[in-house]
């Protein structure tokens, strides 16, 4: 029941047996351990945090969970958070401030367990100026109160970063929280409906037993009270349905809300008329019950979605601060302060904040996030740079041409571009059913009324309304949300996170699966690449560490980890990264180059002819123009790929796309089989075109990639699945995100979604049967309040229970299927 919400922790793909685990972060220590007392740590960062916590009496942190900490990569650069105290930024980040006391809510993605909650709520022990703090676990937020005069916001953020909980600060923080208001509104509506339902039900009991005719005055009183209690339900609790029905009429789009609204009106109107004209009983118990159950359905739906935070739009992608070049020097300023004409410094790995003109620097812009094209585009001074691109290379100076909000990125990221399911016209099952349901019901009601008009005219109107009442598709409306919500929860427990319920329906229709090779089928080996050549001195290792820090290429990351004896990073001048070839820079007055053999040879370094199977994946090092040695970073296939392919082949057509050369074909054929479509040397645009081709041939395609350089293909496919080793970094073009170690769950997920859709269909049939029974009563003129009161809750509860239970049963773990 306690689900550990997945956080930004690397998943250990290779189990290193026997390696001691760091006391702080729990990861294996590999070759190097640092000790302090009885405990070992994997790095100085972890030990530092341990010491900070122990000194402040927070050692209990380590008792609550094994290895609960997060590895802290480096101490934050001094002054990095100073811009938070800027008077234009500060008030927007604080919930409350009166000059002395301030309260802020920060999002900390590193929160992942009980120990985190405990530690963060005991934050006051770390600094006297910190007061009470409260964690919201599902949202990974911390609300902290502090004495602002003694400890400004920037220092609070620094403190959190130093213990491993760096806040994710972005434009989204400045937007405010309206979602809370919506959620609270649902609860009050539910409360009103439930209150009215309970009381009206009690007051209706005499009517059930036929006693009400004996006491006309009491009957009048009970009816009057019921009527009074129903008014807030009609006007307040049901208000969402009025709004939705009005939208249906205005947009000529038929959703399930319209027949529901019709049913509500029929119910209330008929009851009102009965009570006022005929001193009758009315159907107010059914009415209030109906609203109550419908709102319960909405509440359940909301609860399911609360756990999954897919709500990242462009604002959360953007960082909060940039470096602005001013007359007096460079200054870190909040992104909102930028105006047209500002000069901004963009370093390696940083984003272009808005459409700008390149002033100086060697620009090599990676637009993969927007277009999926991973190949960086070289730009010369004077050219236009689009917002959202990432610089790969040395520092640039740019001049802004537009405000941050108005650049192309905003328009690109607008709802339509990424809400693909709406754009593709994939109507949800429920709405498809409701399209013919409403006319059908109206037709039946008219027919029944016509019959009675001929047979006994006094009954005609009553029958018409009764049919409308009993056909109210309460069960129909709730089935899909409940069943799909149940499926989402089952999948969430298996660590597969879906964007929303519509993905389940999309998954069930898939017939083709396309895999990206790099990063999806393969993973970077955990073993640190060994250096082939004379051993590197600590100074050289420090230089390499400093150099690779400027690059985000996977090879650079691998090398960084291999530099064990390196000290702190030092300054690198003249840094340059040539995409797909190598990086170079000057450290300690020496020219270092790291890259492929071909590139180094082109640079004039003397390379002996290199042959060998892995010649292409070697990363060569040259210092001062002389060849020094190489690494061969390995990438290997994930363990369960063969089994995964075997399980999927039977039902789906498979394909593999790769940006690499054909040399992997043999291995892939062993894993996937000979008849699988394989394309090599595919560019991101090529991958997108491949998928589009399949779709034009009428196939429904699921694309499995790592979300980094295949964003375009993921977006194009019917279902885009991002496989990540670190769920913090994903592109919003994906519909499903799963942890790299869980790739083997894919067949199970597909099967579950197929079954969920089948269960939804079965539930529809079940609710139609109830409808038919009810219409039978109504058409005969026999729909008494008692019958209605029994039939409606019975149908709703039983259909929903069936749908939820069946999905949960379908999703249960069978011991032989991993």
């Amino acid at each position: 029941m306690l689900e550990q919400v997945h956080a930004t922790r690397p998943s250990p793909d290779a189990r290193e047996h026997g390696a001691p685990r760091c006391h702080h972060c729990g990861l294996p220590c590999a070759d190097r351990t640092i000790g302090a007392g009885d405990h070992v740590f994997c790095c100085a960062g972890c030990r530092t945090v341990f010491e900070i916590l122990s000194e402040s009496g927070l050692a209990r942190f380590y008792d609550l969970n094994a290895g609960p900490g997060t590895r802290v990569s480096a101490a934050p650069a001094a002054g990095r958070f100073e811009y938070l105290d800027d008077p234009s930024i500060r008030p927007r980040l604080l919930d409350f401030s009166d000059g002395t006391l301030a309260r802020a809510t920060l999002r900390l993605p590193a929160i992942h367990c009980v120990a985190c909650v405990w530690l963060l709520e005991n934050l006051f022990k770390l600094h006297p100026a910190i007061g009470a703090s409260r964690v919201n676990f599902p949202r990974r937020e911390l609300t902290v109160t502090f004495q602002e005069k003694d400890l400004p916001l920037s220092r609070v953020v620094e403190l959190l970063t130093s213990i491993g909980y760096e806040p994710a600060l972005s434009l989204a923080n400045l937007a405010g929280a309206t979602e809370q208001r919506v959620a609270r509104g649902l609860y009050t509506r539910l409360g009103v409906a439930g209150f009215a339902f309970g009381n009206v039900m009690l007051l209706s009991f005499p009517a059930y037993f036929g006693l009400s005719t004996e006491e006309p005055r009491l009957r009048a009183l009970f009816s009057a009270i019921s009527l009074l209690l129903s008014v807030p339900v009609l006007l307040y609790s049901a208000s969402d349905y009025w709004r939705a029905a009005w939208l249906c009429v205005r947009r000529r789009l038929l959703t399930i809300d319209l027949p529901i609204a019709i049913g509500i009106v029929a119910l209330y109107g008929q009851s009102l008329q009965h009570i006022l004209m005929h001193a009758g009983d009315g159907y107010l118990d059914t009415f209030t019950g109906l609203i109550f159950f419908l709102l319960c359905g909405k509440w359940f739906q909301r609860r399911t979605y609360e756990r999954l935070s897919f709500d990242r739009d462009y604002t959360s992608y953007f960082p909060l601060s940039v470096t602005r070049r001013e007359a007096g020097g460079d200054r870190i300023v909040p992104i909102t302060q930028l105006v047209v004409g500002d000069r901004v410094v963009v370093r390696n790995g940083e984003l272009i904040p808005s459409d700008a003109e390149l002033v100086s620097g060697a620009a090599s812009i990676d637009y993969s996030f927007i277009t999926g094209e991973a190949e960086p585009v070289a730009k010369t001074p004077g050219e236009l740079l689009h917002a959202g691109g990432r610089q790969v290379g040395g520092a640039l100076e740019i001049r802004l041409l537009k405000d941050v909000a108005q650049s192309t990125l905003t328009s690109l990221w607008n709802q339509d571009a990424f809400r693909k399911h709406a754009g593709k016209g994939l109507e949800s099952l429920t709405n498809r059913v409701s399209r013919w349901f409403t006319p059908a019901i109206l037709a039946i009601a008219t027919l029944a009324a016509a019959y009675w008009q001929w047979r006994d005219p006094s009954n005609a109107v009553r029958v018409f309304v009764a049919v409308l009442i009993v056909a109210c598709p309460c069960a129909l409306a709730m089935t899909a949300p409940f069943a799909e919500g149940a499926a989402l929860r089952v999948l969430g427990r298996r660590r597969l996170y879906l964007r929303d319920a519509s993905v389940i329906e999309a998954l069930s229709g898939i017939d083709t699966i396309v895999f990206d090779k790099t990063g999806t089928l393969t993973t970077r080996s955990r073993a640190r690449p060994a250096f082939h050549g004379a051993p590197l001195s600590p100074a050289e290792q420090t230089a390499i560490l400093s150099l690779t820090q400027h690059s985000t290429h996977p090879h650079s990351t691998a090398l960084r980890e291999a530099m064990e004896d390196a000290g702190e990073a030092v300054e690198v001048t003249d840094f340059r990264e040539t995409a797909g070839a190598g990086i170079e820079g000057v450290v300690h007055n020496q020219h270092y180059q790291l890259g492929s053999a071909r590139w180094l040879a082109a640079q004039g370094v003397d390379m002996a002819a290199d042959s060998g199977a892995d010649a292409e994946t070697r990363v060569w090092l040259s210092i001062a123009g002389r060849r020094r040695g190489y690494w061969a970073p390995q990438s290997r296939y994930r363990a369960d790929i063969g089994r995964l392919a075997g399980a999927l082949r039977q039902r789906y057509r498979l394909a593999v796309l790769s940006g690499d050369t054909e040399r992997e074909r043999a291995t892939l054929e062993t894993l996937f089989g000979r008849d699988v479509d394989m394309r090599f040397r595919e560019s991101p645009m090529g991958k997108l075109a491949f998928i589009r081709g399949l779709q034009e041939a009428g196939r429904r395609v699921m694309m499995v990639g790592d979300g980094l350089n295949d964003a375009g293909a993921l977006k194009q496919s019917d279902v885009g699945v991002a496989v990540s080793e670190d769920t913090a970094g994903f592109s919003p073009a994906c519909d499903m995100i799963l942890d790299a170690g869980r790739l083997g769950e894919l067949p199970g997920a597909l099967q579950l979604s197929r079954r969920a859709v089948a269960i939804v269909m079965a539930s529809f049939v079940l609710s139609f049967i109830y409808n038919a029974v009810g219409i039978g009563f109504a058409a005969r003129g026999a729909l008494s309040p008692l019958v209605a009161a029994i039939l409606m809750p019975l149908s709703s509860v039983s259909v929903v229970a069936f749908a939820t239970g069946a999905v949960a049963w379908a999703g249960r773990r069978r011991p032989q299927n991993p």
Partner: protein
Amino acid sequence: MSVIAILIIVSLMLAGGFLAAFFWAVRSGAMDDMHTPALRILSEDGDEPLTKEE
């Protein structure tokens, strides 16, 4: 028989009081986070104070 009328009205007022209490609870944020209190209980230690008294 008029006693019933009075009884019903009084009990409705009482129930209404509970509804008002419910509104107050929602407004002061009791329903905002249903998940974290469960975790908090696990980490509670009877001896030490949970959070700083404001």
